[in-house]
């Protein structure tokens, strides 16, 4: 559910001059908010290259967490429909113009025996 709404249009930005650091905004494909300890991961693939999890951080309401550390976060949430910013290191500088971005959100939903979450791929233009 909400898969096509995970990646937010116009949200791809480079955060430094040499364009090796960038960010994109994502929403959680679920009908309620969730404690961050139940977010198992937000995997990015940019122009066909997977971004390693340890090159990625997760930010909501001004607080930044390493993606690999979300399992420990018991006192913060990703709210329903709330954009989270994913900052990442690109292996090579991202050129201006269009980029194909895939975001896979993996969630641990207690009443479901199988993994929850969703996947979205969009062509986003680097601002």
């Amino acid at each position, binding site marked *: 559910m909400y898969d096509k709404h995970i990646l937010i249009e116009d949200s791809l930005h480079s955060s430094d001059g040499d364009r090796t650091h960038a960010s994109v905004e994502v929403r959680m494909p679920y009908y*309620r*908010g969730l*404690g961050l300890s*139940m977010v198992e991961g937000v995997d990015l693939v940019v122009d066909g290259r997977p971004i390693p999890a340890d090159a990625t951080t997760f930010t909501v309401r001004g607080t930044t967490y390493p993606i690999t550390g979300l399992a420990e976060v*018991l006192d913060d949430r990703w709210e*329903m*429909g709330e954009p989270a910013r994913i900052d990442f290191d690109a292996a090579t500088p991202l050129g201006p113009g269009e980029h194909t971005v895939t975001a896979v959100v993996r969630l641990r939903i*207690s009443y479901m025996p199988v993994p929850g979450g969703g996947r979205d791929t969009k062509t986003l233009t680097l601002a």
Partner: protein
Amino acid sequence: MRDISRSGFRDHPSAEMLFVVSAIKRGVSLYSYQEEFFLRTMSLEDCIAHAASIGALGIEVIPEQSMTGHPHIPDDQIAQWRAWMEQYGTTTSATDLFLDTKRHRDRWLSHEEQVASVRSDIDLAVRLGAPVIRAIINTPPEVMRDAAPYARDNGVRLLLEVHAPFHYSHPWILEHLEVMHAEGGVGLGLMPDMGTFVERFPRVVSDRALREGGRKDLVDYIVDLYDDHGDTHALMDIVHYRGGGPVEMGLARQATHFIYRDPAEMLPHMDLIGHVQAKFYEMVDDTTEYSIPYDRIIPVFEQGGFSGYLSSEYEGNRHIEDAFEVDSREEVRRQHAMFATLLGEKPSTDSKA
């Protein structure tokens, strides 16, 4: 005004009266507006206002969806909620709790932690003014049992949502019923989800499988088998034997999660039923849900003397979102037009009557 000729309410104690108004109340779970709320095209106030505008005056809310900071929702949000209830003439009919047994990556929530989680959601229900709380289907019977005193002390009732594929003679529900009867049915009860009465396979689901390239013959096979109420036990096997791929297998899996039971199976449990989730997939018009026979379900509630809320739960959104604009308001409006007719609030608009 109820049209007696089509209502079939013969067993109802008031069936002889022509202008009876039902004791059953109408409401909406804000779950129904999730698409627009997610996309911020409807605000929380818009959701409440829409429900009120169609006479659905009981508002069921998932606090983790409509508010932020669960379980410590800030006082200003609670105050705003109560102000809106006042302003729109609505009431909080129910809150919905989840039980995050997998909160920790490496261990299951202990029994004590599960009970504490439910108690925390009871506190929240009290703050929001809800008389009943939806306990999600994965809540174990022993957690219900040990949370019941706290519910009673707080004047609220924990209602287990009876959700497909569970039903009233299923072992899991039988275990819950035992706990409820032992407790006396004061702090505990049932919240039937009408998704246990899916008589026809929802076409929004099969149509999506076709859009995703599903083989017409296998999609038809699954739908026909379901509509004949055939045994879906090994349906995935059959679809596999016929060469079905992921789309067809996925549709078969969904078919095994839908069930149709006789609505009359709720009658022996009516005293425990405190609220009803009126699940629906697609309102064909103002009189008919495609899959769920509300014209035969509501008489069961009338017969049982139910006086709580029929609370809309629009579920079609996720099945059409890939290709169509979701219009939750129109779907909810149609369901309530149907309810108003079936509850005798106004003359039937069914020209075939």
